[in-house]
């Protein structure tokens, strides 16, 4: 059981890494783009915007944590 758990922990760490929020931003951006395309709207700008927001959010959290511990 612990080996299976270990494998999933490794997989999570390998694919998703330190902050799951960035993964959520990527999935949301791609899903909205696909949804737009299915309704005839070319939303090519959604993913870049979500990437900036996801990465930015993650970095701001680190900065805030660092400031709180200073």
């Amino acid at each position, binding site marked *: 059981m612990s080996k299976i758990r270990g494998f999933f922990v490794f997989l999570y760490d390998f694919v998703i890494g330190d902050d799951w929020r960035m993964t959520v931003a990527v999935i949301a951006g791609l899903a909205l*783009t*696909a949804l737009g395309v299915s309704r005839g709207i070319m939303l090519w700008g959604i993913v870049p915007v979500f990437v900036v927001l996801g990465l930015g959010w993650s970095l701001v959290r680190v900065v805030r944590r660092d400031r709180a511990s200073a």
Partner: protein
Amino acid sequence: MNAGAWALVLSSFLASAVETVEAFTIVLAVGLTRGWRSTVLAVAAALTALAVLVIAVGPSLTAIPLNVLRLAVGGLLLVFGLQWLRKAILRASGYKALHDEVAIFAREAAEARAEPPADPRAFDHYAFSLAFKGVFLEGLEVVFIVLTFGAIHGSIPLAALGAAAAVVAVLVVGFIVRAPLSRVPENTLKFTVGVLLTSFGIFWGVEGAGASWPGNDAALPVIIVTTAVLSVGTASVMRQRKALVQVVAS
């Protein structure tokens, strides 16, 4: 070779160089402290396992329809690339310690020395396990990049060539200096790889989701430059902010 093929080889080469330097440090620490016999066996076993993975998974990836592949690979590359980019920005701005191969070598060597010594004629399980894990886990990231980039370009061998060239280059330099490769600008390389993976992920992910970029393929260089400028700018702002907080705190 066209621009796409060069980008494919360059991305594989840079990512592979970074991971090989990290694996080399672990192997060197284990080999020098525990002996080379089991260490070399572990490296050979790990490289064989990685090659089998590429040969087994590679052909099945190229059989997937291109749009599905672009969406899945674009999404995965994006998630993966953002991890690299986040760490690179945090390191460049001082929020995370820089990767120090000399310090890692010292730590790994100390841990290896702390274990009971093995009989020089017998198989050293500790050395094998440590060296295998080091090479296999660092190599797994390279395999991921080689498979995804190669599959989308329809040329896994070209991506593998870029990765193999980096392994050879690092090993030749490593053999000459016989010390941790601390002068390789690892953090700059990681920053570059993070920018490339993120940019390719954005480009392929959006195309895989069914949307078209204005200017089609011409959009890719624009995405790469924009990602690089935004990332360097963010790291610079964060570095200044960190310095300001330190001044205020002192």
